């Protein structure tokens, strides 16, 4: 069973601080990794993807991939109230689309004014 695990939270972070969200995966051969944000009552929306070991930055967001530890993280700098949502990580085992994306159960993030 290929698994993706996340701490369900809730994670509370003061406005303006850095929020750190983490995810581990069981399949060492996994190729592609994604972070989705889901607002309450809405569908998940893709915010970042990462394929290469290391960091990838996009504005206030940084995705980190550590293949040796089978660990991915999402850092949100200068947190805003609008960042309050559930964050889902997803793993594509092959990178070739032959197997399904596997999602974690999500971490609920609350930004505190």
């Amino acid at each position, binding site marked *: 069973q290929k698994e993706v695990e996340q701490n369900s939270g809730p994670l509370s972070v003061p406005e303006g601080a850095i929020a750190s969200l983490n995810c581990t995966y069981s399949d060492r051969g996994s190729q592609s990794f994604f972070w989705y944000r889901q607002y309450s009552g809405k569908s998940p929306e893709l915010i970042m993807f990462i394929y290469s070991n290391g960091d990838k930055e996009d504005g206030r967001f940084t995705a980190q991939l550590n293949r040796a530890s089978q660990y991915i993280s999402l850092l949100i700098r200068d947190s805003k109230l609008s960042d309050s949502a559930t964050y*889902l990580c997803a793993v*594509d085992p092959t990178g070739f689309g032959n197997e399904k*994306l596997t999602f974690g159960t999500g971490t609920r993030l609350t930004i505190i004014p």
Partner: protein
Amino acid sequence: GAGVSQSPSNKVTEKGKDVELRCDPISGHTALYWYRQSLGQGLEFLIYFQGNSAPDKSGLPSDRFSAERTGGSVSTLTIQRTQQEDSAVYLCASSLAPPNTEAFFGQGTRLTVV
């Protein structure tokens, strides 16, 4: 279309009735996924299509659930003899051919079985 389209957006049905949920993926997307999300829960995988074939049906909860995809485009998820535990939001997602496998979601169908 501009995005993944699902219909209906809301469906209330009586226990024991059959329902059909429709997903119209982004044009050109060959991969299509169905997920289910109960209130406050994570995404539960149901089925995955690559083109018209379904290499992974492992998430379908029972034989009351079935799905098909025709023409490599529209997909229909059918639930027969609905039960109250089927109440959830059913989400469809699609993606391009590999390696661009980022999935984009529709707005979902909220199914309520009464």
